[in-house]
């Protein structure tokens, strides 16, 4: 591949981390890739669109970073083990994995239903994460080290009228990550759940109704990088959402049933 970055050897004086980002071609995934590429990190970037990935890798490598592209559809669950092994060998190890792949396909109204969309969201947002994070958890558990980051959503904190499938997929992911955390913390593995609110990405277009407190994905990437360094467990970005969601989570059902958001 002509776009290959210069080999980056890990030595005591030039230590590097090896990271994998799934869902890296756009939005938050791409912002994370750019942020982490500047932190002495070798990156493997996975996404469906080869063209977008290649462009991103070129951009990172031109700035002296190290990123390799692996086009892949996260719904190809059976291909994960072979691809993961190849990635780990190409990177020369694996220190962290970020699952940032996610789609939001609203049913188009609070009285509409769309099983096909719901199924796709669960397949990408939840089952894809499980397909990738299962072998990763096995590896990190064996090594007694590693970091797993999952990008959930404030939408997973409460089932609302607008998009039941999306809520479900993100709630499932949050619960899955919590279970992984409870399993793996005792093995020296760090699991971080990220719950972004509205971000200025493609996905914002899918949002229903008002979109308060929109942040740039670069700001979220910055927050996530800090949380990884401090080994936080669950973060909201922007952090304001922690308090908003606290209130929403504690809103009694007899009120919540009457709300239209």
């Amino acid at each position: 591949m002509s776009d290959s970055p210069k080999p980056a050897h890990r030595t005591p004086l030039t230590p590097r981390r090896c990271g994998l980002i799934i869902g890296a071609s756009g939005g938050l995934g791409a912002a994370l890739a750019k942020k982490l590429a500047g932190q002495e990190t070798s990156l493997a970037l996975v996404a469906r669109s080869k063209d977008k990935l290649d462009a991103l890798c070129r951009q990172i490598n031109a700035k002296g970073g190290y990123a390799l592209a692996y086009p892949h559809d996260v719904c190809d669950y059976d291909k994960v083990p072979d691809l993961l092994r190849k990635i780990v060998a190409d990177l020369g190890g694996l220190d962290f994995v970020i699952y940032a792949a996610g789609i939001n396909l609203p049913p188009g109204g609070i009285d509409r239903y769309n099983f096909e969309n719901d199924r796709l969201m669960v397949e990408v947002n939840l089952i894809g994460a499980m397909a990738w994070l299962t072998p990763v958890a096995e590896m990190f558990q064996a090594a007694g080290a590693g970091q797993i980051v999952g990008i959930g959503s404030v939408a997973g904190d409460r089932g609302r009228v607008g998009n039941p499938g999306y809520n479900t997929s993100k709630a499932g992911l949050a619960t899955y990550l919590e279970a992984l955390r409870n399993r793996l913390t005792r093995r020296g593995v760090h699991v971080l759940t990220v719950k972004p609110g509205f971000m200025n990405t493609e996905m914002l277009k899918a949002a229903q109704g008002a979109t308060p407190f929109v942040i740039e994905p670069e700001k979220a990437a910055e927050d996530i990088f800090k949380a990884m360094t401090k080994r936080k467990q669950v973060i909201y970005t922007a952090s304001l959402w922690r308090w908003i969601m606290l209130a929403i989570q504690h809103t009694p059902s007899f009120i919540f049933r009457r709300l239209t958001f």
Partner: protein
Amino acid sequence: MSGNPEASKARTSMNLYETFTQLENFGHSLTSSCYRIRATNTEDIHEAFQLAKRLGLTVTARGTGISYNDASLNGGNIVLDMTGMDRILDWDPASGVVRCEAGVTLEDLWKRVEPDGWWPPVVSGTMKTTLGGCLGANIHGKNNFRVGTIGEHVTEFTAILPTGARVTCSPQKNADLFYAMIGGLGMLGVFTTMTLQMKRIYSGLIEVDAWHVKNLKHQLDSLLEHAPDHDYIVGWLDTTARGRSLGRGQIHAGRNLREGEDAQAQETMKLTYQHLPDRLFGVMPKALLHYFMNPFLNNFGVRLINAAKYMTALRDHTFRQSHAGFHFLLDYVPDWERSFGRGGLIQYQSFLPKETAENAWREMLVLSHRRGTPSYLGVTKRHRPDKFLLTHAVDGFSLAMDFKVSDGNRATLGTLLKDFDRIVLEAGGRFYFAKNSETSAETARAFLGEGVIAKFKKLKQRCDPNNLLESDLYRRIFKDIGP
């Protein structure tokens, strides 16, 4: 010879992920995550190669992981743990010939042969190394100027090549492989057994002359002048001394006792006599010592320690010491390398011709002081050349310098070592692949020469056409140079 299909199938169903392990170098300054697979017999080695080929991975053999650098690390790939192949297969106390598996350590070996009146001809500063690693790096001891590297005492070895072939090599048979695999960093094949000739001893003691040297010239002149009348010679160099005292230190020159010189030979050759004490001054458990060393391991503390050590060295004297005590200085304080703290330590060892050594090392020591990154420990030795393909030896001296690594000094130290490389290359020097962790492909090419690299790569192509044997070190230095 190819793998047994049943066992191979068992390996296929093995969960590779469960073997994922974070491994370190000796100095705790480098970690690498690899799939660690244990070998307990030759069949396991064949299988590891088959597995690697099927999965598109590479393999490197690892013993006890005592190398200072990335020689036994293989990030994201397979590390074949050889410590399970640790049998001493034949030992003949009459001739002193021993045949071992590759995972036998120097400790296993000397403890077996010493009570019968023999000692390994060449040992490293620690007894924890495996023979496979010793051959792969072609180690030397304090007697390099007299007996050469360990490879010169190997009469035969067997190895498994990635092609599946089993080879037997000696200086007569498959000589090209013999001289390339010893010192070949495990990149041509995996050693399975080796036959070595031990050296006769007539006492469990070594007679050591210790004297101080006032500066670098005095240090090197002493090594040169006194090597011929001793079996072993080694210098401690105060890396923090400056000005007229630059390069000051102490020489220890040892001599094996001749028959009859030790009246208590029966006693001193017993294993109990050779044991390193567990306690310091009979009270302090040495296993805890590294915690107390840590507060002194900074630029200021080390100057104090080195100065105090030099003061005590001023008294020149002669004494007798056990073989284990004399040779295995690195084992004297258990886990001493942990006292260097979170960033760990690295060693920079350069080998220089006797004509150019003094000036080059003076320049390097001064540079390390000026940059504020002094070495914390310096050790000098006397060397002679040998005929191994990737040899590090010269007719001259070596200086090994330990450096503490921290988040704050990585960049400065990196620049310093690049300048060191330049100075050493200009002075016609060489490097040792078991030690330096920062040697670049360009530096290796400069001191080995294109011819040697081409020859090595040709053998690599012959023994390992699919490039199944790779390590982090191989990728750092050899992969992208040569044909």
